[in-house]
């Protein structure tokens, strides 16, 4: 049976203590700004009603979180494994230094989504943003995958200024021809090719399943793939190596 925790009078410490005491399916009701929810947790399924505070799912280690509202800044900070699903938008610096697991956002993301994401062998973090992303998307990205779908973007640019600044690893899929986007010199932005599609379809399929979109309609659009040019962007910055 699902456990319900009323967060109304709880500070973030009490709320996280209650979460740790419970197992299985847990619903948090009346959440309003409590930080660090589910930090480091591994074996729970948590549903949040109301707005969770900053650093939701920081260091998350396998737990699954569903938010039925917007989420604030630093969602999935240094997340290691698990899944965060947000039925709304998210604030700045989502997935900061994330190294595993997946974040799905129905709406827009703020500035610096995926800043310093990284990957190692089978640990490949993924962020899927259904709306548009703010400036500095994938800043210093070192690994992992960022997908931005720009659904309901109308005439808004799919990402803000300065995407991929300092990007030196990983990959981005942007659902746009990106003619209006200026990328920095150290990355290559190219139209998605047939061999990119199986991977992209996997992410889009899950996004559409979670938020009730038609996969075919979402895929029926040009996509741009962005990758850094070199596996070693620091080559010759100091010495030849």
């Amino acid at each position, binding site marked *: 049976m699902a456990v319900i925790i009323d967060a109304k009078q709880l500070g*973030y410490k009490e709320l996280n203590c209650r979460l740790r005491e419970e197992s299985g399916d847990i619903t948090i009701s009346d959440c*309003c*700004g409590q930080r660090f929810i589910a930090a480091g947790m591994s074996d729970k399924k948590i549903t949040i009603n109301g707005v969770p505070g900053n650093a939701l799912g920081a260091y998350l280690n396998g737990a699954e979180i569903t938010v039925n509202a*917007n989420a604030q800044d630093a969602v999935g900070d240094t997340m290691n494994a698990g899944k965060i699903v947000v039925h709304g938008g998210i*604030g700045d610096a989502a997935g900061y230094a994330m190294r595993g697991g997946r974040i799905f956002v129905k709406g827009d993301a*703020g500035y610096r989504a995926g800043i310093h994401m990284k990957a190692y062998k089978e640990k490949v973090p993924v962020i899927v943003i259904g709306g548009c992303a703010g400036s500095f998307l994938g800043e210093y990205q070192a690994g992992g995958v960022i997908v931005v779908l720009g659904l309901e973007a109308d005439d808004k640019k799919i990402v803000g200024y300065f995407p991929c600044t300092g990007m030196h690893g990983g990959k981005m899929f942007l659902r746009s021809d990106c003619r209006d986007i200026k990328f920095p010199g150290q990355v290559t932005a190219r139209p998605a090719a047939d061999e990119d599609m199986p991977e992209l379809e996997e992410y889009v399929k899950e996004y559409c399943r979670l938020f009730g979109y038609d996969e075919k309609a979402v895929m029926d659009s040009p996509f741009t793939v962005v990758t850094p040019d070199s596996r070693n962007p620091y080559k010759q910055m100091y010495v030849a190596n």
Partner: protein
Amino acid sequence: MKKEGQIRIPSGCAIAAVISRDGERMSGEKITEAMKPMHDRSNGLGGGFAGYGIYPEYRDFYALHMFFDRRDTRKECEVFLKERFEIVKSEIIPTRKIPAITDEPVIWRYFVAPLKSVLSSMQLDEKEFVARTVMKINTEMHGAYVFSSGKNMGTFKAVGFPEDVGVFYRLEEYEGYSWTAHGRYPTNTPGWWGGAHPFSLLDWSIVHNGEISSYDANRRFIEMFGYKCNLQTDTEVITYIIDYLVRVQGLTLEEAAGVIAAPFWSTIESKSPDERRKYTYLRTLFPSLIVTGPFSVVLGFSGGLMALNDRLKLRSMVVGDKDDRVFIASEEAAIRVMEPDAENIWAPAGGEPVIITTKEGADI
């Protein structure tokens, strides 16, 4: 007390604001409540509020809110004030003794009108005269600080957490059509009563989350025009920059935002020819007034609010609305406390000013 540069305290800050576009009065209770979910953004070294429309019965008089270190200082200062102003009312600002707020100075308010004879002999308009008088007191009168000097508005600030400061000043007894709030987590300077936000001059008030790395460059420039930065924190310079650009130079708020959070040259390059010309002009004319480093600020003024982020958007800020109310806060949770059903929650881009004014005909 240690000053700027002698002490360093690591960082945060929280801001929140609300305005009724119809000019309906709201008590200060909700804005106080709104600071609670953001408690951990402050560290108890400063909290404050500004309310607009709170003194309708004295709307034609400047409301000077003052801190004095001793009763004698107040008496000396009153002698000085009487030489320059007609004082129509002077009183202690009512407060509530609570354990969370201690060591309060003498806190007083005066409703004043500049003496016509003094104005004409100094050949100054009213606002300039009041601004110069505030600078003079804050610079020359040891132990006396004017921390609010507008008409039909007032700031209330203290050392403590904002939710306690609101209770201390009995803000539930005031009614304003707009409110701003701040919780402080001082970074470079000590927490003291004068250093809490909002920073106010005439009708302007600023609450600020961030740290200005251009502070000294901005200060050196603005002090050439008679402003004195003597409250030992970076934020006050933003208030004076706004006063200088908008009141003295006659820029619009939007243009002032284009000076303070000037876009990068590469961004200016990508704009339409008209916009390019405008931003190039502003950056070229006022290069010393670009404010760099992280900031999100809310400017309060008579009849409105302006929210602005630094161009890199190194601080969070969201905006939402419901009916005629518009809400601004560092975190959405604060907006939800003020209005659980707030709609259209969005985050303005870095350098994108959000200006909200009361509707024409609203009784402010």
